[in-house]
């Protein structure tokens, strides 16, 4: 029967082991490209997981989730430029601002449904995008290089590639565990119930709005953390990090990997970024391949890659 060694679990374990051992392989082969590629995979995987918390489990299709990647990065970058280099200030400040931004976006957008919800989340992220462009002191349109990564005292050195990689890896695992606890808790069942049948949820006594709003904020904060990591990693911030195209990428990762599970979007991030990387070597028109692939997922494999794996039977 479906024990521990289902094809899906084996695949998930393989991906996690692969990610855990990547730095070892890279050290042995002195391959810095793979190392930085997979650091990005971890960070964007974390962002996609946070998006899926509201989109896959809560039915709230946000088309502005990259805003939190950008805002997290900008808060860190601005503080760094103004001489505040301690991560103990930068990071909480970035998460706080992302939480407040999510609170504002959610308070407005969650009063609407469907396409209006999508439009409002999009509008807010575009607003953040244009505000970043207007910040001349912080590089405006071109963005800005960041001189120093976050400082956490002598024991922690974010400039060490291997250390940085494992920090991202641990934070990603923590996110997975946290989101997994969350979606199965009382809170998570309210969120899932509201996606499935909000009318009935209200009829049995749940004031659904406040639960959805809190969920929206949690997702924004997690994605903000990914934003801080991404900006530290690339030593650079620029407005295009919060462009709607980036939000679209996050949606694609979640859909491709599978919205039904906590880990699906991580698998999606691995697949999406690898495809993008490989395709970019052969053609400028990656969309010509990615597009039809997404179409196939939407038409024939609603559960995404993770769904296909779970559908596989052994023997």
């Amino acid at each position, binding site marked *: 029967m479906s024990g521990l060694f289902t094809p899906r679990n084996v695949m998930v374990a393989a991906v996690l082991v692969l990610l855990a051992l990547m730095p070892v392989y890279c050290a042995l082969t002195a391959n810095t490209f793979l190392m930085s590629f997979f650091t990005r995979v971890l960070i964007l995987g974390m962002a996609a997981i946070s998006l899926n918390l509201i989109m896959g489990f809560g039915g709230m299709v946000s088309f502005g989730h990259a805003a939190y990647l950008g805002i997290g990065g900008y808060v860190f970058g601005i503080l760094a430029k103004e001489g505040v280099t301690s991560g103990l200030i930068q990071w909480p400040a970035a998460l706080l601002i992302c939480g407040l931004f999510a609170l504002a976006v959610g308070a407005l957008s969650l009063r609407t449904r469907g396409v209006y919800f999508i439009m409002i989340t999009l509008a807010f992220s575009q607003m953040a995008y244009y505000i970043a462009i207007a910040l001349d002191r912080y590089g405006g349109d071109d963005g800005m290089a960041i001189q120093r990564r976050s400082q956490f005292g002598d024991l922690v050195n974010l400039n060490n590639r291997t250390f940085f990689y494992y920090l991202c890896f641990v934070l990603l695992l923590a996110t997975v565990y946290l989101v997994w606890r969350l979606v199965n*808790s009382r809170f*998570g069942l309210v969120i899932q119930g509201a996606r499935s049948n909000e009318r009935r949820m209200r009829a049995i*006594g749940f004031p659904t709005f406040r639960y959805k709003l809190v969920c929206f904020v949690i997702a924004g904060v997690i994605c903000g953390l990914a934003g801080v990591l991404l900006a530290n990693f690339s030593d650079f911030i620029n407005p295009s990090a919060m462009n709607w195209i980036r939000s679209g990428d996050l949606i694609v990762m979640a859909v491709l990997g599978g919205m039904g599970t906590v880990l699906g979007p991580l698998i999606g991030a691995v697949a999406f970024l690898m495809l993008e990387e490989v395709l970019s070597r052969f053609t400028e028109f990656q969309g010509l391949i990615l597009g039809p692939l997404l179409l196939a997922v939407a038409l024939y494999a609603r559960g995404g890659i993770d769904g296909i794996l779970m559908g596989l039977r052994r023997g």
Partner: protein
Amino acid sequence: MADALLIVEGLTKRFGGVVASDNVRLDVARGELHAIIGPNGAGKTTLIGQLAGEIAPNTGSVQFDGRDITALPVPDRSLLGLARSFQITSLFPHFTALENVALAVQAHAGHSFRFWRPAREESVLREPAGAALERVGLSHRADTLCASMSHGEHRQLELAMALATGARMLLLDEPMAGLGPDESARMVKTLRQLKGELTILLIEHDMEAVFALADRITVLVYGRTIASGTPTEIRANAEVRQAYLGEQEAVSHV
């Protein structure tokens, strides 16, 4: 009516040109099973919608247990002890029967800002949910996915969810809609057991069931209450016979 749990006064709801509720007045005594009958489109579901808070009336008031709830949001009414079931089944298809009912229990077990413990394993939610399933005769289907249950079972589950909220009053919108004879009989039996224990407002087209169960009946036609009384009085009422019962074959031999 000193002992009325629910008092409705002058309730009017217009949808464009259609007057779905026309100055409706109604009171339901504690412990009473009060049936509402009326032809299709009479405004029965619209009335329930206004009692449950989903539809805002144009004018009029609703009092529950001595409190004016006319402007109260849907969840708050549920928390006060007013539960509704839906004419068109409205459940959580991807949850099991037990999980469906456990959600209703959870809604009334304090706030749900609890982020860590797996809720499906909480016996404080599972046990009352199991008891509600037992009452409607669905215990054996507790772990079946809602989506793969039959229509009849869905109707039972509808009732179980309303019960599981620990309500003092049930608003039941055609619980027997689409049921076969055996399933109907089972539902009547369940309602008979609930009668007296809870106050019930029952909307139903099945006249046999209505006349067998109801303490009082109110007749709604074109949004207006044209009569209200005991089953015997309603059966004898000339206006009701003409407006409504005359069309119904079933009543003549009740």
